[in-house]
Every structure is written in structure tokens, then in C-alpha cells.
């Protein structure tokens, strides 16, 4: 009994080496080889972007086995959908993935509109494309800052948030909020963009292009970063296929799949933009693909701001808050910042939808981390985790 008894309540910690841990560590430790250290990159670890817990079995510095443990941020949006009206569930969409709220707004409203056969007026379609692409840029900026912070550089995240503030000001003018945006309505959008909204965008894009050159000089061409990223965490097309990983991870594996191009929803077929894909599928590929996507999104926003017609922001006689989704089933998927966001709605025509399934890209992207990080060094495992662009609320839903 150590003499500092107040430090050892209930005598639980007497014999050194008793393995504490909870259900998941014991379940994980059953299959651990003797002599390996079970390390909890715990829910409150600085580099897990929120409340993600990864159980790793370390042999020295090498990660032999890793298993993410989820559920610390599970708010059960799908159960809430069954008790709210279709209209009342819209604010939830902004909170499933607060970095790319517009992508989720689009998936849910479009799933219900597709079921009801609602046609969205022209100007609303343009406003949807503009807000979605601006939201994608701001999501990639946050990812870029946090990813480089994981690799040890403290300054770039401040520069990224510097630019993201302008984006938040622009989007706040139409959506009313900076993070958990609730902008889409059934049949259109909630607010029309006034003149200052478009002038802010026209000012933002050239300034952002200048900043991208600076990012390239400061980080992309930096030799330390290149050595930390190239050739690490290979995820080829077959692995993406087996795990259902989509978005920048799939495009970095050489498959140029993008929902905006393969299934042009909304009016994406009117804009010309390329889908960047990288040949060798390592961390640097995912980094490069996302930086190119910022460039492509800016091209889309430029064309959309030029071509936007005058007109109504929402269809006339648009559904009211008490609107009921017609009976039936519908699946709609949208290209979010992290991958393919799909919403599967089954409705019985009642006040609330019967069952809503939210398919989060992060959920499938994270599932391949166990295989991708086997045998890597701890620092590389953290780099791979960062390159997957994880947002934990979206994974736990």
C-alpha cells in the first residue's frame, strides 16, 4: 500500500501492471501479441480531430494493429428524423457535419424533392451550387490547417482560418449562420443573395488564388512535408472498392469518380471543371487532390456568379413546415467535401418520415484506416488519419 493512500482510492491500483482499460480495450487486447503495448489514442487526443478513439497495438514505435472506437459523439440523428416533421429535420442537417453543412442540406432536401417530384427554379439552383462550392472550399481549408498541424507546423492553420473567415462572412449573408448552416428549403433556398453577397465573392476569389500560391510555397513545396507524405499510407483503387471509400481518397487512388460528373445533379452539367486525380495513391496524393479541388470549386463559383439569372429563390406555393413527404422510398447522393453523401428516405406519407438513413462518407473512409495503418510508424499513422479528413460528428451521426 503506497504511503500516498489518498492517491490510490479503494486500493484499485495496488498491484502494478493490472490492465485497467474498459470493454473495448479488453476486447482489443484479447487478440494482442504478448509484449506489445496497447496504446489508446484516446477520445481526448490532440490529433484525432474531435472525439475519435483509436486503439493501437504498438511494437516499439510501429503500429501492428489499430481499431477505431466510435460512438462518443452519437446523437442519433436518424432516430430524431422519425419524431420530427420533414421540415423540422432540416436544421439537423446542418449539425450532422458542420464543416460541410450545405452538402448535407442538399442531400436531404433533394431526396425529399425527388420523391415529391418538386422542380427547383433556376436562380435557386445557381444559389445552391454557389453555396455548396464555397462550403467545400471552407471545409478543405479547415482540413488543410488541421492536417498540417498534425504534422507539426503550427502556423498554417492560422492562415487557413484567416481565409475561412472571409468565406464564413460570405455564407453568413445568405444562410444566417457561419457553421451549422440551414440554408436549403424544399423547392428552393431560404434566402436570396443580395448585391453585396456577389461583390464579396468576386473580391474573394482572386485574393484566394494569391493565397493558394503562398500555401504552395510555405507548405506544399516544403521538403520536410514532402518527405513526411510521399509514399506513406498507400490506398489503391481495390482497397477503396472493398471499403466503400469515396471522395478525395478514391480520386487520389487514380479513379476519377465524382458524383457531380458521373450523376450531374442540380445544374452541375452546365459548368466546365475537371476532376483532379492523382496517380500514386499515397498521403501526398490525397493532399494534392484536395488542393486542386479548391481551385476547381473556385472555377465553378466564378462561372455560377457570372451566369446566375434573375428569378424567384423558391418555387411558389413551396412546402410549408407542416408538409408531409409523399409515400415511397428515395436515395439521393451528393458529392460532399469528404466523399459521397447519400440520404435514403422511406416515407409512409405521415407527418414524419418513416425511416431516414444518412450515409456518411467519413464512416466508410475511416473503416479502411485499420488496414492502411498496419505496420506503419506512429507518426505516419497520425498522418494517415489526418489525410482521411475525418469529421467525427459525421461518422458518429
Amino acid at each position, binding site marked *: 500500500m503506497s504511503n500516498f493512500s489518498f492517491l490510490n482510492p479503494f486500493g484499485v491500483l495496488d498491484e502494478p501492471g493490472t490492465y485497467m482499460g474498459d470493454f473495448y480495450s479488453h476486447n482489443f487486447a484479447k487478440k494482442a501479441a504478448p509484449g506489445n503495448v496497447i496504446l489508446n489514442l484516446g477520445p481526448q487526443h490532440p490529433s484525432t480531430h474531435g472525439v475519435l478513439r483509436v486503439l493501437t497495438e504498438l511494437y516499439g514505435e510501429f503500429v501492428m494493429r489499430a481499431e477505431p472506437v466510435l460512438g462518443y459523439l452519437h446523437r442519433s440523428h436518424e432516430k430524431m428524423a422519425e419524431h*420530427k*416533421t420533414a*421540415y*423540422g*429535420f*432540416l*436544421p*439537423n442537417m446542418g449539425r450532422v457535419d458542420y464543416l460541410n453543412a450545405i452538402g448535407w442540406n442538399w442531400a436531404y432536401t433533394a431526396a425529399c424533392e425527388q420523391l415529391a417530384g418538386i422542380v427547383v427554379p433556376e436562380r435557386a439552383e445557381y444559389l445552391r451550387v454557389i453555396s455548396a462550392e464555397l462550403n467545400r472550399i471552407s471545409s478543405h481549408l479547415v482540413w488543410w490547417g488541421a492536417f498540417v498541424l498534425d504534422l507539426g507546423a503550427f*502556423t498554417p492553420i492560422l*492562415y487557413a482560418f*484567416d481565409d475561412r473567415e472571409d468565406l464564413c*462572412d460570405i455564407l*453568413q*449573408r*445568405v444562410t*444566417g*449562420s457561419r457553421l*451549422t448552416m*440551414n440554408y436549403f*428549403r424544399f423547392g428552393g433556398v*431560404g*434566402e436570396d443573395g443580395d448585391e453585396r453577397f456577389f461583390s464579396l465573392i468576386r473580391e474573394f476569389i482572386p485574393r484566394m488564388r494569391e493565397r493558394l500560391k*503562398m500555401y504552395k*510555397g*510555405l*507548405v506544399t*513545396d*516544403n*521538403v*520536410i512535408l514532402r518527405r513526411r507524405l510521399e509514399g506513406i499510407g498507400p490506398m489503391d483503387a481495390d482497397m477503396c472498392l472493398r471499403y466503400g471509400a469515396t471522395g478525395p481518397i478514391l480520386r487520389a487512388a487514380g479513379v476519377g469518380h465524382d458524383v457531380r460528373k458521373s450523376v450531374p445533379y442540380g445544374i452541375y452539367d452546365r459548368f466546365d471543371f475537371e476532376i483532379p486525380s492523382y496517380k500514386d495513391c499515397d498521403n501526398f496524393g490525397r493532399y494534392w487532390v484536395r488542393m486542386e479541388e479548391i481551385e476547381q470549386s473556385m472555377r465553378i463559383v466564378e462561372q455560377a456568379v457570372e451566369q446566375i439569372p434573375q428569378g424567384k429563390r423558391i418555387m411558389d406555393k413551396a412546402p*410549408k*413546415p*407542416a408538409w408531409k413527404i409523399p409515400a415511397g422510398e428515395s436515395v439521393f447522393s451528393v458529392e460532399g467535401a469528404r466523399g459521397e453523401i447519400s440520404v435514403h428516405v422511406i416515407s409512409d406519407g405521415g407527418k414524419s418520415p418513416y425511416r431516414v438513413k444518412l450515409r456518411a462518407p467519413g464512416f466508410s473512409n475511416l473503416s479502411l484506416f485499420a488496414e492502411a495503418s498496419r505496420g506503419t510508424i506512429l507518426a505516419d499513422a497520425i498522418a494517415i488519419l489526418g489525410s482521411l479528413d475525418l469529421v467525427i460528428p459525421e461518422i458518429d451521426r
Partner: protein
Amino acid sequence: MISAIWDNLKGLYSLLVGMCITARYFFAPRKTVHYPRKVVDPEDLAAYRGPLELTRGKDDESRTRCISCQMCAKGCPGNCITVVKGAEGKLPSTWLYDFSLCCLCGACVEVCPAAAIDFSHRLYLVTTTREELVMDLLADLKSRAAAGPLKPEAGAPEALEAGGGAAAAAALAEAVKSSKAAAGAAGSAVRKEG
């Protein structure tokens, strides 16, 4: 071997480029807005969604346009609004709004047939207890109407805080209880009570 040395030299050059960039930003002006000393300029606040407020009446500034049709109370996902129909005409007797449950989605603003509700631009609302977040918007409308005609919002703290303090909060608490019993709103209110 030569290529390895050449790569390292190019690497060192990229390090120097990185350092010049940070040096340039070292001398660049700062971007932080010091909250107590500088205030966000009202031009950007036009689209800011603060807590709800009742819009002023056309003819009589302190009369609300609300016709207590309960559309907002039914449409609100967070069940924040409790409206009780008053005696004379369609005017509501009590109009309570629980800002602690509100998610600022704007469903009430859009669905109101009489355009009686709108978002205030109060950026600097601070309360210490949850009860203070339950606001009686009728009283708020009267205090604002009394404070004078609509002037461009400077984003400065609104009259409500000035009149805040424990007394007003206690008054509000009774109003909540009495109106809740009277309204007997649909089950959603019961859930809020539980």
C-alpha cells in the same frame, strides 16, 4: 550520390522560401478584432441572426402584428415559442420565446403569415441563468418602441440587457408558469415540461 546532394540543396532552398513567407507575415498588419475595444461594424451584422424579436406595427409602433395563429409554434423544431391568444381581437396576451432551445433555423420567420417575427441583430446578449433566456417578446417590443423610432442598429447591447437584472427574470419566470398552464399546448409542450 550527386542527385541526393542536389535534392537536399533543393530541399534547403524550399525551407528558405518557407521562412521568407513567415517573415513577410511577421511584418504584415494584424487581423484580430479586439472585442472590447473594437466592435464588428454594423454593415456585416445585417444578416446576423440574434434572438427573435416582434416586428413593430405599421401604425402603432408598440403593437405587434401577430394574429396568434400558432403557425410558428407548430412549425418550430425546438418548441421554443408559446403564444397565447388574448382577449381583444387576434392580439396575443403573452408571447414567450425560449432562446436556450432555439436553433435559429428561421422556420418561424418564414411561415408567419403576418411577418410578425424577425431576427434581431443582438450580437452581445449575455445571460447568467437559463431563466433569463426565456424572453417575453411583447415586453421587449414595448421597450424598443418606447426607446424611439427605428435607428440603424449599432450592434450595441439592446435595451433588454439594460433592463435585465433579477427582478425582470423573476417576473418572466411567473409569466412562463402561468402561460404554460393556460396554453395547454399540444404534447410537445408537455415534453418540454418533463
